[in-house]
């Protein structure tokens, strides 16, 4: 069913049919029919039959499709045909159909209402025009141009403009009414004045309290500024002061956070926004713990150094500064730790861990501050003072290093930058963990090396070699002396920066080992955690002293050991093995100097002697147990002597030399 067209009560008159037979009428007529009855498309047999039925039976239903047949040639005076029935007009329609029964030409209620409306509008219009005329006549006396412009021509003809005047009329004053009026006005005036006075008093009181508040506020703000803190406009909120407690050289994230709004409390004193709400970790400071086998053996102490009275504004600002410092420190630590994953630095949920040898690890995380409760971990019995000191030292070092990094970034940004290129380099993570890890790894390497060398020298001693030609010394951090003398270093002005720079790059130590057979090893241990190579490098240089056996001492990996041989290792085990090899060769060299008749046929730890046509062989090997010497005949049984750290290989406590001499004696005829 097509939508019923809306009831449109047009005030435009029905078009006058001047030329009923003109063909111009048809298009407009068609469009009117379509608007009224719906498009021709909608015409169906059923709808047509319904129309016919309703035409013949005027008391038909209020179906929207039933309409009286359109009158194609209405007379000008007749009212327009009734519009099609719409839903809400059902009652009207029944009467209209009744009307249609009575007299199809009588106007419907809608038409009547329209006529009434027009009448009342006309009369209202007439009243308005009359009023306009009256007023404009009145006005025309004082302002003729304005008045005459709005007067109607009919009025102008009847009455000349400017002929209506007005004046005020004085009345007789009733004295009694006058006094009453007078009293009333006076009392109203008094009431008004009283209320004004009280309002003024109140206003002045509030003003006084306001002034006191403001004075207190500004005094405190001035005190803060005099102490050196920067007071600025709050970047986001209008008309709010803020104090900048953050650091200028922080990364992008933290620079905007370092601002605290200074708000006024009810009594005027200043309170700063609590950074615990705005910071990432809330009120938390950095904590370093040293763990061994899962137990905490050392822990750093949360010593918050604050100068101000707790609760005062200065105290608040200092606390906020401490929190944001440690916040940033932890953030940068986590960023750097990702780089160092391959040297044993782990990042976990909210903590950074450095794995050291010997089941120890260092854990760095943020510990929330509870100023009231003491930390239960302080009471741990597994804590040792030494390790706690180390933990504290690491914490302090981290804080110093962050400050150093801030200075470095300040230097960097004060220099004119290179030209802009399409690839934008990202700023590298700050070097906070690296100096500490370098130091710890270096220490570990040195102590491991010391252990190895001690073991070897004890074994060699047990084998009877004299102490004079045997021994080692380790000089830690020899690079410091060299670096401190370099001209570039001397030119730096700041003492603190100089000191830190010494320790922040590579660390170097040297160990010199003397072995039997006049073999000298110089081991250079260099630990460095910068991008080129990350880790500890052991460079071993072996020199064989003067010997009668010409240059070649032995063989390592297919290459002859000449006067000086150089090797590099990344693992301490490799160094250990190499030193053992050098000891072997050294011992063999030494044996050869004893001139017991042994010869070295191939370049390894084996020496041979031919006695009575029987070839005897002695093999020297240095291993985990110590120095071991195997002697035997080809095809016969071997005799083995081992000299270790703590024991001698021979039941009679003889050294290697005696053993070999005895064997010589044994086979001598």
């Amino acid at each position, binding site marked *: 069913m097509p939508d019923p067209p809306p009831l449109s009560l047009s005030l435009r008159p029905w078009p006058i049919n001047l030329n009923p037979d003109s063909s111009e009428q048809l298009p407009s007529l068609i469009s009117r029919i379509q608007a009224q009855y719906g498009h021709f498309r909608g015409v169906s047999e059923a709808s047509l039959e319904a129309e016919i039925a309703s035409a013949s039976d005027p008391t038909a239903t209020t179906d929207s499709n039933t309409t009286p047949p359109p009158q194609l040639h209405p007379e000008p005076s007749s009212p327009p045909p009734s519009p099609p029935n719409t839903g809400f007009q059902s009652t009207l329609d029944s009467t209209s159909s009744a009307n249609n029964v009575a007299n199809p030409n009588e106007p419907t209620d809608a038409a009547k209402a329209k006529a009434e409306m027009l009448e009342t509008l006309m009369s209202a219009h007439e009243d308005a025009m009359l009023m306009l005329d009256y007023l404009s006549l009145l006005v025309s006396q004082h302002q003729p141009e304005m008045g005459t412009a709005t007067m109607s021509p009919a009025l102008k003809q009847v009455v000349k403009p400017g002929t209506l005047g007005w004046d005020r009329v004085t009345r007789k004053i009733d004295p009694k009414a006058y006094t009453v009026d007078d009293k009333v006005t006076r009392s109203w005036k008094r009431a008004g004045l009283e209320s004004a006075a009280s309002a003024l008093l109140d206003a002045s009181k509030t003003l006084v309290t306001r002034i006191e508040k403001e004075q207190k506020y500004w005094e405190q703000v001035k005190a803060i500024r005099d102490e050196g803190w920067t007071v600025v406009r709050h970047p986001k909120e209008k008309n709010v002061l803020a104090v900048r407690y953050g650091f*200028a050289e922080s990364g992008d994230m933290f620079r905007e956070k370092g601002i605290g709004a200074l708000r006024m409390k009810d009594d005027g004193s200043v309170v700063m926004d609590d950074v615990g709400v705005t910071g990432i970790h809330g009120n938390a400071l950095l904590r370093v713990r040293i763990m061994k086998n899962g137990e905490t053996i050392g822990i750093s102490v949360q010593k918050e150094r604050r100068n101000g009275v707790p609760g005062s504004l200065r105290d608040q600002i200092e606390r906020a500064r401490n929190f944001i410092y440690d916040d940033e420190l932890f953030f940068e630590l986590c960023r750097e730790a990702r780089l160092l994953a391959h040297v044993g630095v782990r990042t976990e949920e909210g903590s950074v861990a450095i794995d050291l040898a010997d089941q120890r690890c260092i854990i760095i995380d943020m510990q929330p501050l509870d100023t009231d409760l003491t930390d239960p971990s302080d009471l741990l019995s597994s804590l040792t003072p030494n390790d706690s000191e180390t933990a504290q030292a690491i914490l302090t070092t981290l804080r110093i290093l962050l400050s150093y990094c801030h200075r470095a970034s300040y*230097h960097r940004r004060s220099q004119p*930058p290179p030209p*802009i290129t399409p690839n934008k380099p990202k700023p590298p993570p700050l070097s906070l963990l690296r100096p500490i890890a370098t130091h710890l790894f270096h220490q570990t390497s040195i102590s491991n090396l010391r252990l190895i060398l001690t073991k070897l020298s004890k074994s060699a001693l047990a084998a009877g070699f004299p102490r004079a030609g045997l021994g080692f010394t380790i000089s830690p951090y020899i690079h410091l002396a060299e670096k401190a003398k370099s001209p570039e270093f001397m*030119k730096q002005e700041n003492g603190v920066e100089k000191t830190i720079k010494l320790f922040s790059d590579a660390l170097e130590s040297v160990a010199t080992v003397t072995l039997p057979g006049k073999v000298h090893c110089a081991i250079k241990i260099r630990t460095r955690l910068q991008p080129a190579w990350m880790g500890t490098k052991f460079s071993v240089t072996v020199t064989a002293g003067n010997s009668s056996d010409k240059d070649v001492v032995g063989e390592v990996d297919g290459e002859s050991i000449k006067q000086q041989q150089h090797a590099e290792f990344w693992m301490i085990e490799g160094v250990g093995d190499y030193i053992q090899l050098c000891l072997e060769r050294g011992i063999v060299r030494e044996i050869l100097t004893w001139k017991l008749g042994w010869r070295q046929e191939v370049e390894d730890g084996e020496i041979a002697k031919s006695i009575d046509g029987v070839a005897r062989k002695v093999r020297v090997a240095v291993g985990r147990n110590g120095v071991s010497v195997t002697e035997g005949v080809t095809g016969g049984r071997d005799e083995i002597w081992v000299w270790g750290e703590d024991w001698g290989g021979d039941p009679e406590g003889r050294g290697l030399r005696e053993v070999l001499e005895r064997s010589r004696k044994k086979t001598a005829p």
Partner: protein
Amino acid sequence: MNAPDTTTPFFTTSHQELSLHGYVSSDRFPQVIKLLTNLFTMPPDTFTEHHLIHKPHRPKNLPPNVETYYIKLLSRVEDPDADGMDGAQVYDARKQRWAIRLEDLPEVTRRPCVSRSILSANTGSGDVMGFVRAMGYTIHASYFTENRRLVHNNVVLTLSQILVPKTPEAGLGNPYRKDEELRPLDPKNGWIVQASVKVANNSDLDGLGQAVNELTQVKDMVKGVVDLEVIERLALDTRVKG
């Protein structure tokens, strides 16, 4: 994390320079420096530079459309108060570490800045002045600039004053005796301000856009302290006339 080496003055090699300029009168200068220090959160770098302008010899059979350009030799004058030098050091221009630089005429651009190509080469050792002379250039002018430099991200803000020798007998001038031998070119003793950004490649549109943004940012930052504007590009014309 090395502190930068500020002793060897290596100048940036060839790049495109986008810049804005301004002027500060001498009475406002101390206040402006103070305000800029606060805005840029760094104290200004102070240094003196020596500019030697050279004019090319024009060969006779050159077609008339070819332009020739003035080139300049640029060096940073060591601070005479630094350790190891006494105040009455004699200044020898030949012993300075020069960079050879040609500043091209600024290009016509819609960007709100002056954009010019700078061709520059640093030198190692040798007689640079003799080399340039052998190439057919003669010394046309010599002046020193007194500079104060501040940095913000990629923008370098330089305030400079040109000093020329007082008398023709002073030759190329001695920067160690500023008060006796040099006078400011500007009789009112004012300072010229330049905000510049270097872009490595003139075809790098993103880089150029970034440079323009940063320049505009700095311009807004120093609004009220210094007025930075786009100057007439022909004011930086280095072509030889006539």
